[in-house]
């Protein structure tokens, strides 16, 4: 089990680019909700991270 006091955000997936003001991590724009989830799932597996959803519709992938 990896231990980390703070989890870093590894990537962001959104369907609305206006919701992202600035990002220091890879930010991917999806066409719709289905594609957003698919990309988030693939990124989560690739980066061995956790996938979380925010109430505004943005999906973030964090360090496990």
């Amino acid at each position, binding site marked *: 089990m990896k231990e980390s006091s703070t989890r870093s955000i590894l990537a962001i997936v959104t369907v609305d680019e206006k919701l992202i003001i600035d990002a220091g991590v890879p930010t991917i724009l999806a066409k719709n909700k289905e594609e957003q*989830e698919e990309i*988030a799932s693939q990124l*989560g597996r690739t980066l061995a991270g956790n*996938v979380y*959803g*925010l*109430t505004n519709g943005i999906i*973030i992938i964090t360090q496990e």
Partner: protein
Amino acid sequence: MQEKGLLDLTIVLYILSGTTVGFVGRWLMLKSDIRQYPTYPNGYLIHLTTGFIASAIGAVAYPALLSKNYVAVTFLAIAIQQFRDIRKMEKESLTSMEKENYFPRGESYIDGIAKTFEARNYIVMISSLITTISIFLLREYIKNKFIIIGVSSVIGLTIIKLLRDYTKGHTIRDIADIEEATIEFRDKDNLYVGDIYVMNIGLSETRERIIENGIGIILKPKGENEKVILNHRGQRTAIIHECTRILGLERYVSTRKNFDNGEVALLIVPIIKDIELLKEIVRNVPILETLKKKEN
């Protein structure tokens, strides 16, 4: 000891009796709790062997002192050092396996297990010593040596039972009630077990999988002290470890505390989905020795 004493078969019989009582005691203690490590043949052999040595040292000590062989005390001191090394060895062995477990045991749990093994050797040694002392004391009053051995063995086994009961810990069963709880998602992504927020899941497929295969339970502490114990990180790690060890882990396992009432929610997506078994596992998780408190 005089040479004549060494060859005295009666003395050898007395020492063997003390050793046997200790060894049988160690055997019984191994079988007493199959949930704890070791439950494997090699583990049995290692602990029975060290138990035999401990009982032999305990049984020999008194006859050796009677013959003014004070080196016996040194042997006891060396034995204690050896048992401390066993504790260290157990600790290292369990720690080295941490990364390969479904979920780690945690340092507090490992420390407790290692101390238990060390303590069991002392129980064996003390019981063998008392058995042999009883034999030598009863010899003054009873002439039939088989009666002497029989009575002393009962005394030795009673000592084992008393010490085992004294060192026996409590389990979650004693401090908390366990109830099954519903698993649901609120605000799309937030997973709740009962009314306790547990985690955020961003993918709809994963959410469906958790709803389908997940189990949620709530641990309700019986009092204020119990709240303190349940909220301890090491204790919660031990609970999760036992659940995942027996049921396997498909993906998610987590615990969360309700700050208002001290209840703890446990969510697990196990390989074997059996709610009754899960509740029984949690009830039988030992309370870590470092968390025990005296009642006010």
